[in-house]
């Protein structure tokens, strides 16, 4: 939000406040309920839970007094986050008590997107959905219904329902967000990896703005590194808060991170800056890598990325010198490009080349219970493994998924079935995809907002309108719910218990999932209950062999009652001691605790990697001839256009909480950043009303003239210009980036593009 939160913006606050206070009156919302029915029951002590105001899932504690939400803070037991929350996290009770939130099932009575609804009972809702799903099954087959839900936001339940019903088309939100780096780490490390920012001495950060797209533990770690005198290099087309805090800011050309990284690798190899011993011992594919980057000289790539060859070479030398306490941040989002997978792989390879993996201040493998237990011998205490209730075999599906994951020649074969390529759904509805002998006819969407979060909004809406059934489960009438046939009121995270989660950093850890702080308001129901009840209506109750969430959790921990008690009381638990395989000190401490692990220790006092690290991907080579790294220039814009890019705001999350009263008051408009020289050329002054347009859409907005953006680029925060008129505070305010982006789905990674050409003029 940076400049937007200037004094002027704040003064405006008092005038908007009056307008904002007008309550919602659409049927089914909390505001439309009778006052006497709004009773909130909650716990006066702090209850540990997990935040859901963004996807970072911070551990929190929330307190309720006299039936009113009082305060949310970070869980002090969580050392990594230091007991902190961000502005969004602190605004959680606003979501809970928002008069505009949905607390009854509502059914569409007008056209899709017309905004005419009637309140129905849960039973009517279940009957309607079950009947429609059955009709689609008869007419087109169960496989033509896609089910989308985010991890930790109902995925377990609705993916279970989908498979019981007979659809293979399960999706998360990943392809609109982290999928490319997830795939890259699976390919290179056969494991998830994390970054030890706090201890690093040198960090290259390509637009990973953890100070605005806040991830609290990362923000704290980056700050710690900066305080310790680490050098942080920001490559970002605009002056983000990260760029402002960094030691150096290089406004890289949007969408051209890959040529930078390739030249960087070229330098590491050609100047012999890489760690030969590490590469020889633990890596495969080095020769292929060397050959593939040979043509990407810094001189040549400098012209692409707009950072000088000398600067690229200097950074590569500094990076190698700082290793192993060096991190080339594989980042989140950046300016998503058609070569997302290549970019993330290339970045990760930089860390591998200098041997900054499984070391303090570098990358480390995520160690869940499975991984960790392998290093423990007989007799040592093992980290517990969470179980799942036994579910009967799902019906067999004869049809491929729309993304054809699981088939050898699918370009998305690296993706996991639980994530899927959600960005393909509009295409798979409107056109025939190669190798997919059907189109989609239904979409069941739990707490995901594709109309707002997928690119080329118009296509997404068109697809939704073409479907026979669209069910949305959400806490509000989101932009996607706006086009649904039926909207089911989910509980907010403060009103529901969830399954326990297993995680892993340097050692295995677990968290409580979410824990109820207050009883559900109105008729809102948690996902585990809705999926189970709907399944019962459809005659599929055998697939939900648990009484309630408490029973489910009991089955998860098995006889480990201690773990159950600990998770409920403190919200989290971790096991064993941290382990970094390449750090002698860490290995020694690990062996001291678990003597039987001594057999794993090599002559250098470290532990070998469980797999070879891949600098060339035989799998990708088979499928797409992309096993080696390569750069394919892409034309984002015409010569007379400007690059348009977006980024995250610290007070709003993507498509999700822009309608939150407090957050909306802090920032309700995404002004378009434009460089003074460009503005002058176009005759635009700060604060002017402007029009941003291209072949996909025209958006009206406000100009923010600032030197904090490249001359050939304009920038706006993401998650503005909401489309649902039921999001009364956020509706239509600010430029909606996704309407402007192209519908391209990046090969292999399934990611959307977040760079496009636009024309800007005074409105």
């Amino acid at each position, binding site marked *: 939000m940076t400049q937007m939160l200037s004094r002027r913006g704040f003064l405006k606050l008092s005038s908007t406040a009056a307008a904002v206070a007008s309550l919602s009156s659409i049927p089914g919302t909390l505001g439309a309920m009778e006052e006497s029915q709004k009773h909130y029951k909650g716990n006066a002590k702090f209850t540990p839970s997990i935040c859901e105001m963004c996807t970072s899932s911070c551990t929190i504690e929330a307190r309720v007094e006299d039936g009113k939400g009082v305060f949310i803070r970070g869980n002090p037991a969580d050392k990594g986050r*230091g007991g902190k929350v961000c502005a969004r996290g602190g605004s959680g009770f606003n979501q809970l008590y928002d008069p505009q939130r949905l607390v009854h099932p509502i059914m569409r009575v007008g056209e899709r997107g017309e905004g005419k609804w009637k309140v129905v009972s849960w039973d009517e809702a279940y009957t309607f959905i079950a009947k429609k799903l059955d009709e689609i099954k008869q007419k087109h087959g169960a496989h033509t219904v896609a089910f989308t839900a985010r991890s930790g936001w109902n995925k377990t339940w609705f993916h279970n329902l989908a498979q019981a019903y007979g659809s293979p088309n399960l999706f998360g939100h990943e392809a609109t967000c982290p999928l490319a780096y997830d795939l890259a780490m699976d390919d290179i490390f056969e494991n998830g990896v994390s970054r030890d920012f706090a201890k690093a001495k040198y960090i290259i950060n390509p637009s990973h703005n953890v100070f605005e797209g806040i991830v609290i533990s990362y923000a704290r770690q980056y700050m710690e590194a900066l305080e310790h005198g680490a050098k942080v290099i920001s490559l970002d087309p605009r*002056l983000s808060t990260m760029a402002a805090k960094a030691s150096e800011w290089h406004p890289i050309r949007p969408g051209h991170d890959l040529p930078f990284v390739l030249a960087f690798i070229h330098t590491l190899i050609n100047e012999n800056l890489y760690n030969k011993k590490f590469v020889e011992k633990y890596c495969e594919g080095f020769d292929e890598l060397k050959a593939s980057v040979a043509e990407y000289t810094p001189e040549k790539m400098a012209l692409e990325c707009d950072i000088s060859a000398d600067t690229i070479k200097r950074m590569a030398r500094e990076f190698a010198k700082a290793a192993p306490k060096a991190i080339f941040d594989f980042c989140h989002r950046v300016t998503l490009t058609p070569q997302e997978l290549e970019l993330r792989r290339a970045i990760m390879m930089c860390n591998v080349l200098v041997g900054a993996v499984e070391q303090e201040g570098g990358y480390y493998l995520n160690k869940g219970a499975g991984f960790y237990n392998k290093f423990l011998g007989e007799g040592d205490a093992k980290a517990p493994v969470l179980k799942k209730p036994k579910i009967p075999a799902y019906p067999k599906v004869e049809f491929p998924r729309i993304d054809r994951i699981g088939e050898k020649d699918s370009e998305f074969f690296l993706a996991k079935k639980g994530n899927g390529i959600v960005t393909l759904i509009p295409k798979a509805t409107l056109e025939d995809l190669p190798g997919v002998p059907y189109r989609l006819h239904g979409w069941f969407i739990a707490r995901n907002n594709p109309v707002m979060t997928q690119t080329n909004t118009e296509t997404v809406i068109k697809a939704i309108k073409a479907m026979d059934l669209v069910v949305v489960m959400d806490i509000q009438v989101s932009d996607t719910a706006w086009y649904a046939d039926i909207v089911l009121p989910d509980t907010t995270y403060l009103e529901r218990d969830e399954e326990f989660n297993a995680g892993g950093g340097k050692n295995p850890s677990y968290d409580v999932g979410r824990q109820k702080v207050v009883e559900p308001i109105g008729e809102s129901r948690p996902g585990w209950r809705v999926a189970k009840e709907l399944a019962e209506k459809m005659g599929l109750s055998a697939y939900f062999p648990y009484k309630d969430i408490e029973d489910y959790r009991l089955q998860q921990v098995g006889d480990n009652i201690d773990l159950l008690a600990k998770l409920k009381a403190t919200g989290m638990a971790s096991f064993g001691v941290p382990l970094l395989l390449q750090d002698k000190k860490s290995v020694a401490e690990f062996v001291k605790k678990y003597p039987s692990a001594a057999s794993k220790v090599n002559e250098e006092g470290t532990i070998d990697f469980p797999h070879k690290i891949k600098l060339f991907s035989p799998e990708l080579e088979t499928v797409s001839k992309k096993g080696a790294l390569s750069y394919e220039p892409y034309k984002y814009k015409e010569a007379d256009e400007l690059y348009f890019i977006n980024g995250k705001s610290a007070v709003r999350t993507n498509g999700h909480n822009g309608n939150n009263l407090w957050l909306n008051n802090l920032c309700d408009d995404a002004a378009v950043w434009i460089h003074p020289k460009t503005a002058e050329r176009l005759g635009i002054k700060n604060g002017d009303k402007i029009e941003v347009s291209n072949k996909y859409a025209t958006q009206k907005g406000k100009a923010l003239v600032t030197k904090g953006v490249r001359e050939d680029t304009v920038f706006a925060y993401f998650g503005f210009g909401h489309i649902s008129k039921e999001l009364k505070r956020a509706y239509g305010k600010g430029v909606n980036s996704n309407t402007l982006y192209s519908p391209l789905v990046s090969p292999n990674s399934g990611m959307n593009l977040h760079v496009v050409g636009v024309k800007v003029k005074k409105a």
Partner: protein
Amino acid sequence: MAKKYGMIHDNNLCIGCQACSIACRSENEIPESVYRLQVWVKEEEYPNGTIGYEYHRQSCVQCENTPCVGVCPTKASHITEEGIVLVDVDLCVGCLYCVAACPYQARYVHPVTKAPDKCTFCHDTRLARGEEPACVTVCPTDALIFGDLNDPKSKINQALSSRVTYREKEKLGTNPKMFIVPNHKGGINS
């Protein structure tokens, strides 16, 4: 010796995320149309030619020599033994002299009580429970440090001895207990 509470806002650590502002609203039930605390973000061009952001904490700075208390005809505005400036709503006659007298524009009129109100370092809520102010508790990057200026071992005194700080409008002699660590990028190094 009585305690003397003060606070540090470190411009280097602040990221302008507004978590403090929201926490304050939440803890002190601040009505929508007003605020006790905001962080204003401003683009700045530094002498070395680089650009960056400056973060200004807009709130009561808890003056030791208090213009607001000085002009109050009814003693509604007063300063506690611990150096916290408060408003006694029952004694307030609504003359708003204190609002005009505050050189930091820190006071607002509470829309319900109609009396002036402002940051109290969470005197009635959190300090009464032995906790730190709400803003300090949540700040993701630890840009806020709170504590007893009379205790040489307190966190705030340790930080004051190791970081260069200044106070706003020091010339006025109000002696604020809000200390600011300037941005190193501004050319001032500690």
